[in-house]
């Protein structure tokens, strides 16, 4: 198979990958349009009026184009559109191909991967990789020999993510309230100090924090360590990440949009500050708080450096998803050599990525808004 054929097939396949979503998207749009037309008809419009409406809209797009240049104008417009769409499709392919590769590779058998040319569709869809990674095989000393301990990874991540997020949201809500509503000496200075800590790179904190938690004996709980040590290890993963200056700043902006009159009215009615926070501010800022919650959870899901630093490489029971994925394959590859477990690597990646994608597609609105308002990754 030459380059051209492969490219063609690939274009087709990657397009196929996106097509599910595309169909859903188009059907949604079509329904919206029909509904609008239905609405118009119900409110007394007739088919002739709708047709004329379309004509008016079309004319508006071609305003001021002399009749003799209309053809050239349309050709130019269409060409520009085609170029734009081709550009966007190419970028979309660039984004989608790794996902596509991840999916198909995870369904290939090890023999097929080892075949001379990588195939773009699995010759035979197998769940071999999935079977393999879910089957944990232990060394005599109890460490992991083979497989990916998803149960522990997911469980730990959810545990750590849950507590980090809950305490972060509480801390952020109260701090944002204090900085947006309460008047106390030094509030501006304190807020400026907090903001300036955002400029400091994480490494500066991590070095000392690593020292702090190791002094407390909270690092690297081993397989046979007692509960106290394990709880310490969890605390090491949770405590340093409670609170967030950035989210405080973000929520404070939202709180500040709540008008002062509302606050004074509440004061006149004898509503206390904290009651005001819970009864009025939080309900109004609910979308922002949801956004913060999601972004914080996603942050835990993607955390790598710190969990990797404070947990024991040998103790698979303490792994979170990111370092777990990386650690698990390190031992598998050492055992079998690279290349033989590509399908397993992809299956593992897929399983780790999937929950994020599901969350993204269900809560797209909140996530994208949060990012637009200045979220940063990491």
């Amino acid at each position, binding site marked *: 198979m030459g380059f051209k054929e*492969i490219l063609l097939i690939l274009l087709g396949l990657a397009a196929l990958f*996106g097509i599910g*979503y595309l169909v859903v*998207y188009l059907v949604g749009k079509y329904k919206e349009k029909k509904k609008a037309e239905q609405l118009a008809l119900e409110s007394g419009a007739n088919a002739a009026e709708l047709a004329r409406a379309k004509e008016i809209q079309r004319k508006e797009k071609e305003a001021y184009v002399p009749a003799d240049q209309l053809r050239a104008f349309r050709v130019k417009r269409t060409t520009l559109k085609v170029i*734009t*769409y081709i*550009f*966007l499709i190419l*970028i*979309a392919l*660039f*984004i989608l191909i*790794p996902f596509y*590769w991840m999916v198909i590779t995870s369904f290939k058998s090890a023999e097929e991967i080892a075949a001379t*040319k*990588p195939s773009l569709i699995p010759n035979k869809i197998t769940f071999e990789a999935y079977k393999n990674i879910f089957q944990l095989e232990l060394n005599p000393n109890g460490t992991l020999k083979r497989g990916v301990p998803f149960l522990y990874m997911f469980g730990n991540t959810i545990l750590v993510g849950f507590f980090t997020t809950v305490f972060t949201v509480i*801390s952020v809500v109260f*701090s944002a*309230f204090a900085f947006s509503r309460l*008047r*106390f*000496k030094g509030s501006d200075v304190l807020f400026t100090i907090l903001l300036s*800590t955002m400029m*400091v*790179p994480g*490494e*500066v*904190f991590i*070095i*000392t*924090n690593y*020292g702090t938690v190791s002094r407390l004996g909270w690092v690297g709980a081993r397989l046979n360590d007692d509960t106290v040590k394990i709880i310490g290890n969890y605390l090491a993963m949770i405590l340093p990440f*409670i*609170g967030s200056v950035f989210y405080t700043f973000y929520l404070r902006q939202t709180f500040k949009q709540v008008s002062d009159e509302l606050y004074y009215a509440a004061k006149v009615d004898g509503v206390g500050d904290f009651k005001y926070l819970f009864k009025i501010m939080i309900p109004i800022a609910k979308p922002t708080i949801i956004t913060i919650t999601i972004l914080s959870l*996603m942050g835990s899901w*993607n955390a*790598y*450096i710190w969990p*990797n*630093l404070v947990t024991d490489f040998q103790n698979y029971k303490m792994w979170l*998803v990111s*370092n777990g*994925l*990386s650690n698990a394959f*390190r031992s598998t590859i050492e055992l079998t050599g690279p*290349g033989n477990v590509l399908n397993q*690597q*992809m299956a*593992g*990646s897929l399983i*780790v*990525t999937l929950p994020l*994608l599901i969350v993204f597609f269900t809560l*797209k609105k909140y996530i*994208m808004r949060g*990012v*637009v308002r*200045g979220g*940063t990754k*990491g």
Partner: protein
Amino acid sequence: MLEWKKDGWKAAIALGPTLLIMAVFTFYPIVNTFIMAFRNNYKFLSGVDEGFGIQNFVTVLSDPRFLGALKNTLLMVVVSVPITVILSILIAVALNSIERLRGFFQTIFFLPYVTNTIALGLVFNTVFHKDFGLFNSLFNLGAVDWLGAETTYWRAFFVLMVYTVWNGLAFKIIVLLSGLQNIDKQYYQAAAIDGASKWRIFRKITIPLLSPMILYTTITSFIGAFKVYTSVISLFGKGAGASNSFGPDNMLITVVGYIYNKLWEAGTPFGVASAGSVILFVIILLITLIQRRVSKSRVHY
């Protein structure tokens, strides 16, 4: 003298717990890391040192590994930032100019943002696999080793740039697109009245009005690129702490990578790692200051 305004005690309740945690895990570390950076031959667990001085900085700055890491990082910054920013401006403008399928493309372009860096690093590792990878077979390159033992610096660097661009577009596209959509339509009407051509409108109205967003995305990607670490680690698939986790002979080690490797090293790593992180902090501080300057003189309106 010490006159608390009337909400003082409420603020103490609201902020107390947060400030307590921050004192331990945010404020103290900043101070402590700076101090450690200036303690000669500091033993962390015993807490002894050989006095204060700049020995750690001398060690770091004369370490060829650090200079190599700095060179690598600078190269990544210089290559990846312009590519991602320019490409995302183009994409955002293209998205803004279409109506049909805008939401669809927007969603697709956003996907890399919601993926796990380690997992997708593994995927890129597979795509660029020497024998079984998609890339070699797609372009009929034969068994070119991109990330394995026989790779070259520039090959590995190329893959890293592809992954960085892939990873970095999402955030910038969405920020720039929202910036474009927030430009008051009336400026375009005014420009139409003033008889500006399409190109002039783009150059004289759109780009200047988008400039705060462009500056913002440029600065965040500058800072992000200086702190690059996880994506390099994930690409080579060995995991942090493993030997040669930045490619053969750690060829693509970054400044942050250097700092963490020092943490793992036996001996007196804490002081050296601290010094490294202080240097990183200074670099980022400089970028931020430049940003302040630029935004005051150029985008202020």
